[in-house]
């Protein structure tokens, strides 16, 4: 999620839309809130202030006199959340990265099945949901189907490419096709040409990745190419990691070369700046990032001054593989199974994910809406915004299948283990086969213990 840039246009648009929506939905909200008459109930949300602003809380409380919202940013810290869960004080609405965390939260009994509430909801029309919302479905074995346990705030196809045409011209590289994806190998090739080194110092990187471990192997950047090849990084029931499989090794070799060629900030050649900021500063030619980056690009100089030079291209594909462009995060929320005020929490949930805050997020270019009917709020005032929106709409058809994250590993486990065992390979201190053996063994042991716990 990016920051919330302010603009008069967006503010007016949101104010207009929200006041209409707010007034229209007021009777519904009051009905839900007056379940316990005259008793004020506090609903806690484990979100950051830039995700749920004071203004948004005030607006809600104005229309819902019997519900107070308490924001608890500490719950976005996994260690704090673990302590809160252990002591029975977790937030009523817990923030998670649905794509990577939903399975582990359902398996541990933390997330509540919300399907019965969705079926009765007058705020959400389930037929209106984009397929990416399926990241919050769990059928007992895997994500994608089954009842809904939560929703994303917004979502994006997180592996699409933003690129700087000016830097392409300087390197005499043709622009990328807006419709035909380039291969991962071509991406590495042009990234090498776009990387400018002077006296051993990188002046300009070819290719950056906004998350994970930088331009290096990470859970997402392993799963995606492997899945494009039609394979998986996990055994069928997710009980084993398959980092030694031929498909995984091919992808790992690509990332080892990317690190050696210093194509972007990576574990060997660290850069104190976030790669997204380097792109905004014109120092990275291609940034792998979702549509949520649009708001930052449109408002942050120097790139915002020459928006005609910034374009999007499809997610790279493995040669001969399946073209796909899934989400890698789908950050959103679930309702804690231990909540003591389900009716009030559901009212807040509907407000946050389906009403004013959702419209605000979408209007400010922070990502795509979860409901198709909200696409009208995606920024489209300038020619550049309209071009980006048009491109995004064309690319929507590749949002499925979802990436297969291991439900027993959660958000950080795999990346921590990958960085621990692959870093020696990048530094030439271990072979890939050695590292993969250790990595599989470490992850298998964690998966095994969590599988045992989830059976209890």
């Amino acid at each position, binding site marked *: 999620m990016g920051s919330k840039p302010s603009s008069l246009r967006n503010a007016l648009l949101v104010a207009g839309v929200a006041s209409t929506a707010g007034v229209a939905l007021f009777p519904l909200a009051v009905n839900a809130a007056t379940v316990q008459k005259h008793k004020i109930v506090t609903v806690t949300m484990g979100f950051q202030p830039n995700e749920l602003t004071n203004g948004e809380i005030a607006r809600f409380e104005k229309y819902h006199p019997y519900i107070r919202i308490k924001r608890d940013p500490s719950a976005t810290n996994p260690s704090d959340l673990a302590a809160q869960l252990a002591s029975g004080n977790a937030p009523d609405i817990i923030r998670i990265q649905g794509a990577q965390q939903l399975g582990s939260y359902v398996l541990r009994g933390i997330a509540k099945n919300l399907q019965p509430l969705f079926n009765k909801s007058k705020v959400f029309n389930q037929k209106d949901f984009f397929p990416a919302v399926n990241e919050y479905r769990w059928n007992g074995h895997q994500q994608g189907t089954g009842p809904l346990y939560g929703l994303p705030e917004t979502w994006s196809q997180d592996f699409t490419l933003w690129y700087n045409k000016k830097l392409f011209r300087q390197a005499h590289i043709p622009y990328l096709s807006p419709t035909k994806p380039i291969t991962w190998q071509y991406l590495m090739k042009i990234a090498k040409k776009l990387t400018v080194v002077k006296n051993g110092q990188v002046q300009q990187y070819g290719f950056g990745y906004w998350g994970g471990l930088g331009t290096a192997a990470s859970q997402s950047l392993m799963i995606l190419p492997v899945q494009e090849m039609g394979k998986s990084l996990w055994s069928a029931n997710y009980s084993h990691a398959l980092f030694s499989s031929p498909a995984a090794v091919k992808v790992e070799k690509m990332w080892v070369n990317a690190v050696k060629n210093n194509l972007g900030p990576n574990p060997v*050649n660290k*850069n104190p700046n976030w790669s997204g900021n380097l792109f905004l500063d014109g120092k990275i030619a291609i940034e792998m990032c979702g549509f949520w980056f649009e708001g930052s690009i449109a408002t942050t100089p120097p790139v915002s001054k020459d928006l005609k030079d910034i374009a999007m291209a499809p997610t790279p594909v493995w040669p001969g593989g399946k073209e796909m462009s899934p989400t890698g995060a789908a950050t959103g929320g679930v309702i804690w199974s231990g909540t003591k005020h389900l009716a009030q929490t559901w009212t807040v949930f509907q407000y946050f994910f389906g009403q004013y805050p959702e419209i605000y997020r979408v209007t400010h270019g922070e990502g795509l809406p979860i409901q198709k009917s909200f696409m009208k709020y995606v920024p489209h005032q300038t020619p550049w915004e309209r071009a980006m929106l048009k491109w995004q709409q064309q690319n929507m058809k590749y949002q499925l299948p979802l990436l297969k994250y291991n439900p027993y590993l959660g958000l950080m486990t795999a990346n921590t283990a990958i960085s621990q065992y692959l870093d020696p390979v990048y530094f030439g201190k271990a072979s890939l086969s050695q590292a993969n053996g250790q990595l599989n063994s470490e992850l298998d042991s964690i998966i095994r213990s969590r599988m045992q716990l989830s059976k209890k």
Partner: protein
Amino acid sequence: MHYSVYGRRHRPFDVCAVYGEKGSEALVGTMAYSGKTKTASRTVRRSRFKKYLPFYLFISPWLIVFLALGLIPLLWGLYLSFTNYDGFNFNSVQWIGMSNYVQVFRGGAMAALGRTILITVINVPLGTAIGFMLAVLLNTKVKGVAIYRTIFYLPAVFPVVATGLMWSAIYADQGGMLNEFLSIFGLRPINWLGYTWAPTALILMLLWGSGGALLIYLAGLKGVPQSLYESAAIDGATPAQRFFHVTVPLMTPVIFFNLVLGIIGSLQILLQPIIISGGSLTTAPIMPIYLYMVDAWLQIFSLGRFSYGLAMLWVLFVIVLLLTLVVFATSKYWVYYEAPGE
């Protein structure tokens, strides 16, 4: 005459010492006269209670906090280290005996401990020596000494996260201050956070904070009697001789204190390696600076092995305890205590 730290040594049963001269007379008199031992013991208990009540009332805030936030959580952590607790299964934890402790000695934790001890062996003596020498220099009467003292003490005031981020920016391979400086002389950049240089970079960063013990050293130096220096000067001692034969011996208790704290602190280094590595708090630093506490932290918060991480911490506690006892045992050979009456 032998003195204890509290004054004259008490006799094995000294009524006077406990109740005072008048109180003891009344007590003994009552017992002898009436012969009612029950009344006497009740009086003793009441008297003792009255005597110690203010003491316990005064320390009660600390005692309550220590019990609630110190001892009980520690013992709770000890219990959890024998279970399969993973941070989320609080209601269904199971006793698994010593298996977490066995794993600590079989897994990579011992390698991390070895690296931590190596860093400690280099960092603590150097840090102690630098801190002490700085204090000696700042104990001299030069113009603006207060400013120098402030400057050298400043690293101790900085939060460790801020310090780590600052050094991370200094060491960064790309755009780092140190490499930018080298490039002025046409030198190629060095990967300060790579396998070869990372331990050195970490130790340099830790040594930068050597001024942390400055105040304690300065307080110790102020306590060295001037008369000893004057006597030594009259006897013809050179400044170096005065330093080695007066200052150093009299400062050994302070050095000893800082040494013990330094060892404990160094074995618990956690945030510095993670932050200078430039990743998130859940990213593993490279192996040469992957220290014991870093391992425990990542096992708990990244890999979700809470009970195993707790077992690691209890093993570290025992190691710290043993090392401290060893240092204490050696102290009789090199720490000089000035005893009253000698």
